[in-house]
């Protein structure tokens, strides 16, 4: 369990001060995969670096398994860092060392495994884990980006850490390689019971890998919760913008003109997850209501292990019919929201002025 409370980081250069972290508090459960998402410059990288004190917080506390780490003496800090793996966007491998030595040297330099034979065995085991056994004698320059990140992961895991910090670990990789690295991280999390904290600006990474997510903007945590919750019900406009990156449906909701047609009737956004996903709700609605329903856009998929569905419906009918439909939806705990048909960028502040057109039911 990692407890971050009231963490602040202020940069001072001359008379100018920049607040990189502003009263950040988070609890991260052991064994979970926790994502921190934000736009570039939001402070996510600084936040991640405070967790192994590559960045010293100005004030606040970080407790790992009850132990305060911000006040550790140097020798203890080295030990903490040895027990905390970290992987990087640009891999940060040693170009002058082979793949084997990139993993073996830190074990030697930290004194974690002094015996050369034991070290060799450990490195080979790690290379096998990340699927690079036949590349042991190559230099990083001879590897692809995905292979380099696998070396980075093997190196980070060498000391058998309990925590792995991922700094935009897939941002420099193509989508296919990203998927394979994410699968590897998920596998490591499952098999080794390792806590993973990752930062990214890509919602897709959060969707595919994380259990919990925090959204950071200008050094503040603006939203936090389970991935399904944040993804399906983003409240803050920054979160909505981030979700819309990986979700065409939300992108349409933020800008209905993307549909390319203007329909008579209401534009209604349905969101459901878990068991509800498999219920025949639409057919129930059609059976009880004379209203005309068209599916304009939709997706039924998984958020890591949670099934979910989202539909954008066009509904034409009498007010009573629509109310009846909403009742059925409420019964099944389907979140529904009427989307104002006119085009707007949908910042919540503006949206709240359109209360006649839009009503939101939080399940």
């Amino acid at each position: 369990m990692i407890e971050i409370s009231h963490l602040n980081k202020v940069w001072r250069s001359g008379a100018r001060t920049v607040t990189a972290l502003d009263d950040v508090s988070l609890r991260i459960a052991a064994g979970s995969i926790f994502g921190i998402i934000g736009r570039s410059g939001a402070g996510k990288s600084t936040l991640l670096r405070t967790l192994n004190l590559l960045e010293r917080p100005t004030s606040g506390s970080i407790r790992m398994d009850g132990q305060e780490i911000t006040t550790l003496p140097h020798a203890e800090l080295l030990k903490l860092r040895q027990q905390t793996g970290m992987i990087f966007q640009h891999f940060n491998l040693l170009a002058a060392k082979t793949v084997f030595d990139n993993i073996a040297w830190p074990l030697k330099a930290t004194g974690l495994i002094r015996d050369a034979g034991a070290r060799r065995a450990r490195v080979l085991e790690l290379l096998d884990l990340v699927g690079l056994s036949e590349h042991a004698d190559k230099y990083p320059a001879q590897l692809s980006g995905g292979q380099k990140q696998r070396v980075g992961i093997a190196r980070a895991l060498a000391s058998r850490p309990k925590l792995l910090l991922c700094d935009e670990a897939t941002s420099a990789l193509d989508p296919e390689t990203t998927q394979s690295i994410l699968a590897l991280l998920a596998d490591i999390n499952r098999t080794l019971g390792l806590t993973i904290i990752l930062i990214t600006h890509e919602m897709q990474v959060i969707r595919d890998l994380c259990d919990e997510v925090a959204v950071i903007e200008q050094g503040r945590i603006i939203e936090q919760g389970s991935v399904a919750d944040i993804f399906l019900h983003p409240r803050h406009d920054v979160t909505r913008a981030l979700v819309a990156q990986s979700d065409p449906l939300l992108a349409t909701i933020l800008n209905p003109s993307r549909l390319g047609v203007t329909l008579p009737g209401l534009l209604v956004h349905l969101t459901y997850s878990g068991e509800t996903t498999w219920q025949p709700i639409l057919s129930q609605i059609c059976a009880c209501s004379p209203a005309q329903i068209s599916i304009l856009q939709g997706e039924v998929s998984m958020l890591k292990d949670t099934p979910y569905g989202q539909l954008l419906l066009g509904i034409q009918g009498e007010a009573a019919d629509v109310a009846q439909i909403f009742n059925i939806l409420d019964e099944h705990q389907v979140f529904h929201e009427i989307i104002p048909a006119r085009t707007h960028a949908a910042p919540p502040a503006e949206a709240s002025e359109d209360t006649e057109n839009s009503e939101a039911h939080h399940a």
Partner: protein
Amino acid sequence: MLEALQQVYWPEILQGTWDTILMTLLPLFFTVVLGLPLGILLFITSKDKPLAQPRFYAVTALIVNLLRSMPFIILLIILIPLSRAIAGTSLGVRGAIVPLTVAATPFFARLVENVLRELDRGILEACQSMGIRLPQIIVGALLPEALPGILAAITVTGVTLISYTAMAGAVGAGGLGDIAIRYGYQRFETTVLIVSVVFLVILVNIMEWAGQRLVRHFTHW
């Protein structure tokens, strides 16, 4: 042309060449021994680096810059007492070692500092994130990563030293530069001047060629 070459006193040219080689390689050795740690020190005490010491860095950098901006011919004269104290003489090859080392060390240290600075800062960060002690990071990661750059810096410093030896010749150090000045300039023996310069050019090229080969050998990217 052949006749002119016959007039050149070849044993003296060969002796001069040997002296120049000694005056290059010995100070180069001492320069690396002194300048490498100095360059590393400049790097790690500079801003945002693990041992950032702004005041120490400023003072060291100032001394380095002072020595670098001093014309070598002046430095030669100023360092006569120091050379006598350390090397026992200010004359000959022996007398040239101290001033050449003093002139080349700050130059080389700056080059080393820049080579380290141009390494990806992520390397240092990655090593720190693994809980490795700074001396280990420097010896085990930064220097091996910087090796091609450091070899190139040694080559550049060696070439600079060859040209400095010519000036050292002016105050009695011997070597090809001395021959070029005494015979070529003062006695108008143009052939000797040209021959010494050709030998110097050859030395510089051998140095560059060897340096480049080493750099290539140790570059894995």
